[in-house]
């Protein structure tokens, strides 16, 4: 059994960081070159100074989960090690980037059904695997589904994933409030009921709508309103005439408010919609054509002068404008580290809805922030999203 854990070293000097490909909160992701194998990888550099001791434990669990998954549709951690005050996590490099990024660039108003079908089927296989192991991903969305130049699809970001079997006890359900509002299942918002892996199935349904329309339902509203509307309103539907009946039916099965009535991932894989899935060279042909082939790693290495190669590339390497644009783009994914007081939140939501005059101004400022991506800090009293 050739194990990636042994192939990739834990020596920082084996890795040459190239350009920054993502930035969110306390972590920056770089495209990097792994010298012993002549291979391009992605390296996530996590600033440990910005993590408290409690989150160190979460980082351990996330890294361990990532190094123990072995599924073609999940991003595995090849290696992880400490460099100065950062933790480097080595992962496969997915050249196209996230589905969200691909969609924004190639089809801002949504992908075609043939593309969606393939991407969703691959994602569903990953969820089936995770759920069978007792994990809940808790942050399924287009921004966390990565695609590479061959059309391989991998679900990433276990930052908020939880294990139902943590430390030997079966936990009936989780009741931590976590995820990103638009994709969040109603039972996750109603913290008192608790939730299980079916919460991912709701997010999966929302992701389907996101891929079909270019954005998830309710994305024009501020987070508080999204929470309220998800709990109170009827579930969103796929209505467009251009989509097939089986696609609409599949989405409707996921977006049922009662989690018990949602199918699990294994069952949903058998849905007729996924029988039509074509291989990536057919289904993603048009999408992949938008993205130029990956740079030849050798050329990249020559361009990159060896003097700065062993260092973290400094931010002024790319022009300030370019950096800004890239960082904005990545921020649109939305940073999702949510743990806060649900009661507080409900109280806030109530005042927001009661006070119509304030609603207007609050909403617009929140929407602006929301579009830039947002962070909500743990147990915060004021719910204004912070710019990242």
């Amino acid at each position, binding site marked *: 059994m050739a194990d990636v854990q042994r192939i990739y070293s834990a020596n920082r000097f084996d890795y040459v960081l190239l350009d920054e490909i993502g930035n969110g909160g306390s972590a920056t992701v770089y495209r990097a070159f792994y010298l012993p194998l002549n291979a391009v990888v992605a390296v996530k550099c996590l600033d440990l100074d910005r993590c408290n001791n409690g989150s160190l434990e979460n980082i351990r669990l996330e890294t361990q989960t990532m190094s123990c998954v072995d599924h073609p549709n999940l991003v595995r951690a090849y290696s992880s090690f400490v460099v100065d005050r950062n933790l480097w996590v080595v992962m496969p490099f997915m050249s196209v980037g996230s589905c969200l990024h691909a969609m924004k660039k190639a089809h801002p108003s949504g992908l075609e059904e043939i593309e969606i079908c393939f991407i969703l089927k691959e994602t569903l296989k990953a969820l089936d695997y995770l759920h069978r192991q007792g994990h809940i991903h808790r942050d399924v969305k287009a921004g966390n589904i990565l695609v590479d130049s061959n059309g391989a699809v991998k679900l990433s970001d276990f930052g908020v994933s939880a294990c139902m079997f943590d430390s*030997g006890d079966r936990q009936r359900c989780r009741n931590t409030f976590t995820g990103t509002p638009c994709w969040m299942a109603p039972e996750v918002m109603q913290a008192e009921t608790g939730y299980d*892996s079916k919460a991912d199935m709701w997010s999966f349904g929302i992701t389907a709508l996101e891929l079909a329309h270019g954005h998830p339902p309710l994305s024009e509203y501020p987070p508080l309103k999204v929470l309220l509307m998800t709990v109170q309103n009827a579930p969103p539907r796929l209505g467009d005439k251009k989509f097939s009946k089986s696609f609409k039916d599949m989405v409707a099965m996921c977006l049922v408010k009662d989690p018990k009535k949602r199918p699990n991932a294994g069952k949903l894989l058998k849905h007729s919609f996924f029988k039509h899935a074509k291989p990536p060279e057919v289904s993603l042909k048009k999408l992949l054509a938008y993205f130029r082939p990956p740079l030849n790693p050798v050329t990249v290495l020559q361009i990159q002068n060896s003097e700065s190669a062993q260092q973290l590339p400094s931010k002024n390497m790319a022009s300030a404008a370019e950096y800004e644009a890239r960082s904005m783009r990545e921020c649109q994914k939305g940073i999702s580290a949510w743990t806060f007081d649900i009661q507080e939140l409900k109280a806030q939501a109530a005042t927001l809805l009661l006070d119509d005059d304030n609603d207007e101004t609050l909403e617009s400022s929140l929407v602006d922030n929301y579009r830039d991506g947002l962070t909500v800090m743990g147990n915060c009293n004021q719910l204004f999203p912070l710019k990242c």
Partner: protein
Amino acid sequence: MPEKSLGLVAGGEASNGGWMRGVVGLSEEGFKMMKGICISKPGGATSRAVAQRLRHPAAQSDSTPTSSTLYDKSSSTKMKGLFKSKPRTPVDIVRQTRDLLSFAARSSESRESKREEKMAELFKNLRELKSILYGNSESEPVSEACAQLTQEFFRENTLRLLITCLPKLNLEARKDATQVVANLQRQQVNSRLIASDYLEANLDLLDILIAGYENTDMALHYGAMLRECIRHQTVARYVLESQHMKKFFDYIQLPKFDIAADAAATFKELLTRHKSTVAEFLSKNYDWFFAEYNSKLLESSNYITRRQAIKLLGDILLDRSNAAVMTRYVSSKDNLRILMNLLRLFAAKQNKPPDIVSILVANKSKLLRLFADFKTNKEDEQFEADKAQVMREIAALELRDRP
């Protein structure tokens, strides 16, 4: 499965008889239970699920060719009508797992194709054991089934076989096995943790688990099992008093973060869970333990190691049961110098994170007063220099230093 392998799988004639008793025993229990439940809670969804599960203990698993062949061979036709899906009891699954593990342990003798088949069977059994202990998306675990499984598991050397065969399993089976072992540590049979009794009689298994940190492929699985095993006080005492304890100082600094962090988590568990055992260990082993702790962990070049070591040291010394150890620790000048060096690191760091600056600024006057009163009896230039530098850094701090 071919007829030939039946003997091995079923573990011979005697085992067949036991297997039959298992089926009957469980089903009687199951029917009794079902009746009871129906009276108290007619038609409750949970009770139906429980009853169903007791009738089909290996619910969710397909009835394997092995079990059905076996069944036909050893049973009367009367029984056949009673159990349509020919379920295997938890006891059957444990027994079969044990047989397959013994096979895997001496596997090199047999042909490759047969081996693959048996390994696949073993992986499936492990998954079934996990499903009984944890339940699955459709059903909750049933305590009766868990108790039977646990009892059979520790009746013989299943745990030893599982631990020694773990490197021969594939990744998924290793994860399943780890979760099974973790769960079994908490299963009570007649209000006894029989896992603890078993481990007490088989303490050498801990040696295998601890040595796992030296094997990249096994470290996380053995590490997770180890952490569950040291929940038992006698097991924790064994590890604390063993020669292995010294090795943890190296394991914590292994280059691979996931493994090093796992060792650190186990180390922390060993030094915090069982208070009286820890206090006894620390007072007996004070000298070498803190010498290692200071030189290897607090003065490590690895940032995470230092940070976790400071946190753990605080937890240990501030625990009331370790009061004697604390008094001894804080009367050492060397210890003070090391901690001051650490404080100097915090104070001297450029671009200090805002929350660190706030803490230092908030405590500025107190810290400065404390340092000003700090005098050693003998002259010590190094100490004075360190002290002066820390004081300079702290005195210069203001809130506007926040980046």
